[in-house]
C-alpha cells in the first residue's frame, strides 16, 4: 500500500472501462491528474504499466504539456492568464503581484500547500481580459488592486 493506492484504484476503474488501450495515454493522464491533483512518479509508472508503454514515453508526454503537473498543487489554485489579450492588458503585472503577495513564483506552490500560482494560456474569455481563475472560478477585468480582494475571497476558503 502506498500513499496513492486509493487514487490508483480509482484510476484503474477508469482504465478498465476503456475499450482499447491504444492511443489513450493523454486521456488517462487527464483522468489521473483529475483524481490525484498531480502526477506523481508512482502514478506515471502505473499508467505506463497498465497501458503497456515505456515509462519514458509517459514522462515525455507529461513534461511536454504544461497542463500536467509533476509537483503537488496547493489547496487553492490561482491561475493568471498570460495569453495575448490578457497580457497586453497587464496580466503580467497581476501575476507579479500574486507572486509578491504569496511569496512564490509562477508554477510554484506555497510551503503550507495552501496556494499554487500558475500561468494559463487563454480561457476563451478575452472580452473579460485580463482574467484570473481561482479554483475554476473566473475573475474578469482584474487590476493589480483587485489582487488583495481576490486573496481575501480565497482566504475565507483556506
Amino acid at each position, binding site marked *: 500500500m502506498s500513499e496513492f493506492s486509493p487514487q490508483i484504484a480509482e484510476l484503474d476503474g477508469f482504465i478498465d472501462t476503456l475499450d482499447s488501450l491504444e492511443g489513450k495515454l493523454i486521456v488517462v493522464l487527464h483522468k489521473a491528474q483529475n483524481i490525484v491533483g498531480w502526477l506523481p*512518479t508512482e502514478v*506515471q*509508472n502505473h499508467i*505506463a*504499466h497498465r497501458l503497456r*508503454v*515505456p*515509462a*519514458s*514515453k*509517459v*514522462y*515525455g508526454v507529461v*513534461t*511536454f504539456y504544461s497542463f500536467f503537473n509533476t509537483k503537488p498543487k496547493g489547496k487553492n489554485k490561482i491561475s493568471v492568464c498570460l495569453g495575448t489579450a490578457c497580457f497586453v492588458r497587464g496580466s503580467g503585472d497581476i501575476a507579479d503581484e500574486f507572486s509578491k503577495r504569496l511569496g512564490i513564483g509562477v508554477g510554484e506552490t506555497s510551503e503550507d500547500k495552501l496556494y499554487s500560482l500558475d500561468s494559463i494560456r487563454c480561457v476563451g474569455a478575452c472580452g473579460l481580459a485580463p482574467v484570473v481563475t481561482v479554483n475554476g472560478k473566473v475573475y474578469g477585468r482584474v487590476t493589480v488592486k483587485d489582487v488583495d480582494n481576490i486573496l481575501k475571497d480565497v482566504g475565507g476558503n483556506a
Partner: protein
Amino acid sequence: MINVTINNINVAVEPGSTILDAAKQVGIHIPTLCHLDLHDISMVNKVGTCRVCMVEVAGRRALAPSCSTAVTEGMVIHTNTQRAVRARRTVVELLLSNHPSDCLICAKNRTCDLQTLAADLGVREIRYQGVHSKHPKDTSSYSLVRDPNKCILCRRCETMCNDVQTVGVYSAVNRGFETVISTAFDNPLLDTSCTFCGQCASVCPTGALTFVNDIPNVWGVLNDPDKFVIVQTAPAVRVALGEEFGLPVGTRVTGKMVSALRRLGFDKVMDTDFAADLTIMEEASELIHRLQNGGPLPILTSCCPAWVKFIEHQFPELLEIPSTCKSPHEMFGAVAKTYLAEKLGIDPKKIVVVSVMPCLAKKYEANRSELSEKEYQNVDYVISTRELAAMVREAGLTFNELPDEDFDSPFGESTGASVIFGTTGGVIEAAVRTANAWLTKSDSGKVDFEELRGMKGVRVATVEVAGTKLNIAIANGLGNARKLLEDVRDKKAEYHAIEIMACPGGCVGGGGQPTHHNDYSIIKRRANALFEEDREKPIRMSHLNPDIQRLYDEFLDAPYSEKAHHLLHTTYSKREL
C-alpha cells in the same frame, strides 16, 4: 515509375521514393544528419528535424527537406545551388551555436557526423551566439556515457531503443529549447531497464552517447609489476579491428591482434574462443539434459549480457528457461583465476583478466555480483574493439605491419565452432554440432548447419539430431527477441532451443565495434569472415578441442558436473521495469 530531374540528370524512381533516395540512385550526395535508414534491420529515423538536407525544388518557394519529401512526376530538383548550400551551412552553424566546441578531447573526435558535416560545409565561424544547454552528464553506468549537451535531438537513439530494440529507455522530455532526450523521470541510466547493448551509441551522430573509457584502468594494471594481466579476445573483434587501421572490411587480423596485445604488455594473450568451446560443452550438455529430463524447454542461450538483462526486466516469468551457463568471457575468467592460476603458480588475487569485446554490455556484465568469487570478479576489465584500437595507436604500434602471432597456451586453442559465436546463429550452430555428435556418438556427422545461418531478424529451422527433430529459433535484435519470447510465453510456438543476440547481426554488429557509419553491409561482411575462419579451422566441433578435454580431465571432472556448475554457471533475477 516517377520521372524527376536532379541537377539536370533525368532519373526514374519507384513511387514513394524521397528526393534523397532518388539522388542516391544517380550518385548525388546530399548531406544528412538526423536521417537514418538501416533497411536491413527495419530502422528508419525519418523525423526531418535537422534541416541539413534541404534542396531546391523548381516552382516551390521554400526549400524542401530531401529526406522526407516524396518525389512527384516531373519534379525538377537542384541539390547544390548557392541557396541550398547556404541554408545547410546556416543550419549547421545554428546547431553549433548550442554545441560544445571541445572536439579535440571529445570521445567522438574523428568519427562525429556533425564534425564531418561542419568540415565538409567549410564552416569557419559560428555567427550565432546563443545560450548553451546545461544538462548534467550521466556517467552512472558501467557501459554508456550520456552527455545531453552534445545532443542535436536527431532522435536516432530513441528510434533505435524504442522501435528496433523495444527497450524504450529514451524519450524526448520537456519542450522547446529545454527539450532533452532523457530517461523516465531523468533517472540515471544504471537505474533504468537499459540493457547496455550500446546500439544507441552506434547510431548517435555526435558525442552525446559514447562509452565508458576503461583504457586508463588497463594501462594501470599493465604497468603494475604486482599484477599478472591476462587478456582474452572475443571472436567478433578479429574481423572488425582491421577497419580501425584502414584495412578492408572483413579482413581477419587475428595474428596481428595477438601480436599487438603482446606488445602492449599483456602477460598472456589468450582467446575467448577457447571459452566459447567450454560454453558449448556446458550448454550442449544442458540442452541434452533438458531434452532427456522433461525440460524446461526451450533452452535460451545466455552468452549475450544485454539480452540477459532484457529478459530479467521484460519477461521475469520466463527466468527458468535461459541456459544457466555464464557467457564465454566470464567462464574464461572463472577458470583463469582457478585452474590456470594453479597451473602457473600465481595467486589468483594477482591475476587481472581483461576482455576485449565487440560489446558495451560486457562492461556492465563484468560488474554483476553473481559473476564473482568471494574476493574477486571473474573478469576485471572489459575494453571494446575501438578501445583496443585506441591503445594500439597510443602505443605507437604500426598495426598493419605487425607479424602474425599465435595465442598463448593453454587457453589459446579453439575450434571453428567457437569462432562463429560472433555472429547471429553461431552459438546455436556450435551447440547443435556438439549435441549432434554426442547423441549420434559420431564425430564424423554434419558440421555445417546452413539452415541456421543468415541475417534475418527472426529465423526458425528444424534440425534433425540423432533422429529427433529439434525446433530451433534464432533472433537478433531485441525487438525480434521480444516477438519470440511472447510466443513462448503465450505458448503459441514450441521450440527446443532459442538463440538470442541483442545486437542486429549479432556480436559483429556490437555497440563496441568500429563505427559502421550506417552501412549495414559491413556487418554482413564481418560475419562472412567468421564463417571463413570456421571453414579453415582443422577442428570444427567444440568437444574435440584438446585443451578443453584436458581442462575437464585435470580440473572440471565432466561437463555439467558439480564443479563445472559452481564455476561456469550462474543465476538470474527479476528486475523492475
